[in-house]
């Protein structure tokens, strides 16, 4: 038997919980993604609550910038946890 035959005839490794361990890590990763998005949403809600009502009526430049920054942060959080 030559070494290439030897390699081809190796028995498959038994799983022995490997797949389950990987899936636990995948699940943890998905949970982290959800947490990151939830945090971003909470921050957004907090800003909305804290901001004085007049700022909404005025729709100031600061408000628009803050909204854009928040949207970027949410997008980056999403990309980081999925890409």
């Amino acid at each position, binding site marked *: *038997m030559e*070494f290439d035959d*030897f390699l081809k005839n190796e028995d*498959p*490794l038994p*799983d022995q919980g490997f*797949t389950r361990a*990987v899936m636990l890590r*995948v699940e943890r990763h998905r949970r982290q993604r959800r947490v990151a998005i939830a945090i971003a949403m909470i921050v957004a809600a907090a800003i909305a609550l804290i901001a004085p009502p007049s700022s909404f009526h005025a729709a100031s430049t600061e408000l628009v910038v803050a909204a854009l920054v928040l949207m970027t942060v949410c997008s980056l959080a999403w990309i980081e946890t999925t*890409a």
Partner: protein
Amino acid sequence: MVDRAEPDPREAVWIARVIAHDDHEAFGELVALHQSAVRRFLLRLTSNDSSRADDLAQDTFLKAYRHIRSFQARGRFLSWVFRIAWQLFVTEERGSRGIAEVPLFDGIQASDDASQRVADARTFDQMMNMLRPDERAAIILHYRHELTHPEIAEILELPLGTAKSLLRRAHTRLREAHGIR
């Protein structure tokens, strides 16, 4: 056992389900299907350090899950996973101690019965461990998984000519070690 000639027809469906629906169970099926090939590949690269190989294999599948949208069915899924495994292995080697230099074949005595020698798993492991990791990778990918030279070149991120010479050199060194003519 994963074989070049018989890719599992369910694989494409599972990949599509993971991409379209983030299907947890489908990804589990992919891991279960390829875990042996990836773990054995990494076992060889790490000189049979099973703990390290399994850690790297877990990292490999997690990275595959995170980046599966970039797979886009270019080539075989397993080749793509091997590429991730190789990248992680090289990164870890460079981060820790660098890819070790290996001795030449001078420590194995040839016996009279070539078949018996080759059948001896410990001897085979010993000889594989004397190859450089990239040579080991090329041998496994070509002889175990029957990947083509361009596929091996892509996985190991080498020019095609370099991959061919790497495989030829590794093959020669293994044959010399076995005393097979």
